[in-house]
């Protein structure tokens, strides 16, 4: 299959969208380079699907512009943009067999019959659906339908492939399989892909860069490692799995991090931005970075409230003295009501200015 049509970069220039008085999207500015796999990540209602629909031309923006190099595209009709889109519910044409579904975009482009047959066959082979070419979508499983939807979007060799939560209708096992498949197809075609998801694991495993969105704003853009280790704000950190929160006052701040007093404990973490001594701050950490330890000045006391066996250990919850719920890992089973002292990995805990500060 030939390489995707060429372009340099795609720019969102202060794109916004409001529904009545509600702003679904506020001044989204973003540059995407050719060949990148970008994930738009965020909770439902954050504006990620709105962004994708505006890009596809299915929804008009109420402000701003989208540029493909020097060409403005947000004023074009969807059929004039030539992007391949994979819909959440696949949106396969139920009255056409797999071959005709995949060939539809080519037929609309007045490609010759022989060429359509050849390219459709290649696309069917790429998504491994040989033997199903003459079936109707209704005769296929969810995973197979998803493959047809992907083949239909990429066979037209679009400059951009847009995917709107393509795996959300599949079961867990199939989701993992299709994730690998999408990655493989992206690697073999190199098509620039924009992928909308609310699943951070999916975004981390697929994307070259992740755009975290919340409440209609872009909160952070970065590589998966970057986002995983260094979320820019408390909101992003929470969304990226920093499940535990402890609030306190900064007692010491240096180049490597800062110390915060929470109750009687003095805890250390890496500060996302410089924090002044005496300021209120929130320390966040993942479940994996909090574990029972012998009590000392840098441990937090807690009472175990629940425990779940996870094969290689236990994930437990506990209540701290201040009443905050803490999630931690333990190599051994803990009894409910047991008092424990929890140690935080200071290199992996993050400190942010406290909410509202």
């Amino acid at each position, binding site marked *: 299959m030939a390489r995707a049509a060429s372009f340099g970069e795609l720019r969102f220039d202060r794109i916004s969208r409001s529904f009545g008085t509600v702003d679904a999207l506020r001044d989204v500015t973003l540059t995407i380079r050719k060949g990148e796999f970008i994930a738009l990540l965020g909770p439902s209602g954050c504006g990620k699907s709105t962004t994708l629909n505006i890009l*596809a*031309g*299915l929804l008009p923006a109420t402000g701003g512009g989208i540029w493909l190099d020097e060409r403005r595209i947000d004023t074009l*009709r*969807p*059929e004039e*943009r*030539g*992007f*391949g*889109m994979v*819909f*959440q*519910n*696949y*949106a*396969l*044409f*139920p*009255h056409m067999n797999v071959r005709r579904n995949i060939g*539809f*975009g080519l037929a*609309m*482009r007045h490609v010759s019959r022989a060429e359509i047959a050849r390219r459709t066959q290649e696309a069917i082979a790429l998504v491994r659906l040989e033997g199903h070419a003459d079936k*109707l*979508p*209704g005769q296929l499983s*969810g995973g197979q*339908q998803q493959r047809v939807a992907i083949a*239909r*979007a990429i066979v*037209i060799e679009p400059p951009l492939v*847009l995917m709107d939560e393509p795996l959300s*209708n599949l079961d867990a096992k199939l989701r993992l399989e299709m994730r690998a498949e999408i990655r493989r197809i992206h690697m073999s075609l190199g098509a620039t892909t924009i992928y909308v998801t609310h699943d951070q694991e999916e975004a981390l495993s697929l994307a070259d860069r992740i755009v975290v969105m919340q409440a209609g704003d872009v909160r952070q853009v970065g590589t998966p490692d970057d986002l995983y280790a260094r979320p820019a704000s408390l909101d992003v950190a929470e969304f990226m799995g920093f499940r535990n929160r402890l609030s306190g006052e900064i007692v010491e701040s240096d180049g490597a991090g800062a110390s915060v007093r929470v109750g009687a404990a003095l805890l250390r973490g890496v500060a996302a931005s410089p924090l002044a001594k005496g300021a209120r701050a929130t320390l966040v950490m993942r479940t994996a970075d909090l574990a029972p330890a012998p009590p000392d000045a840098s441990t937090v006391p807690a009472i175990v409230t629940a425990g779940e066996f996870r094969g290689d250990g236990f994930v437990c919850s506990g209540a701290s003295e201040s009443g905050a719920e803490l999630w931690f890992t333990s190599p051994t089973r803990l009894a409910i009501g047991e008092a424990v002292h929890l140690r935080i990995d200071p290199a992996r805990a993050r400190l942010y200015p406290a909410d509202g500060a």
Partner: protein
Amino acid sequence: MAIASSTRAPFDRVTLLAAPAVLILCALFLYPFVYGLWLSFAPAAGGALANYHKFFADPFLYGTIATTLWLALPVTILNLVLAVPVAMRVRLMHSQRLLTTILVLPITLGVVLIAQGLLTYLGPQGWFNRALMTLGLVSHPVRLVHDYWGVFLSLFITGFPFTFLLTLSHVSGIDPALEQAAATLGANARQRFFRVILPLLAPGLAIAFCLSFVQAFSVFPSAILLGAPAGPTRVISIAAYQAAFEDFDYSMASAIAMIMGGVQLAIIAAVLGLRGLAYRGPAGGGKG
């Protein structure tokens, strides 16, 4: 495997609950039909087929089939052709309920009321003709009532809401994502309609056609009130009426009714036959 699939399910006594309905159906539909059929083969004079011979020998009688078809088919097709775009548009509207109510209102008015209204409105002294003359578009009133077009319009007005409602339900059943998918694949509005929407709509339209056609084919009140019952709108039901209540030949009237049913059945069979060629699965794009 003791429970072989070939053994029949035991009789379920709950099935007996359908008995009253079956009884009513037999008494009100099956019996009159069979009686009429038998009556049509028992003419006052001649052999069993005398009525049918008479009907197909007399152009004044067999001509009514063409006259009725000439009214019912164009009206039904026009209704469908207009109902599809209106339904496509209404599907996207927020105030769908209000518009649907307005469109459906004529159904509640009844055929006779509409015929009476049209009689004055479209008559030589009616508003319509006066407006045309005032605007200078015509010098003499256009003949609309007591003619083909009066019946045509009345059938259209009473038939459209019905066809529209049937079409709207089928149009609403098509996943809007399919149209969006077609658009992102490069199909313009025309291609989206003819390649995606219409094929999915076809089976529903066939049903809507059949129901609307049967309604239009049995036209009677408006053909008498608004039409020219001796001439261009002498429809088949008028022939049956005259046989029964002017000639008091119930046997002949039954034969005409049977012929009327036969023609309707032939048209419906043809349309449903064509429907069999179309895709008839679900019109959604995703997993069921």
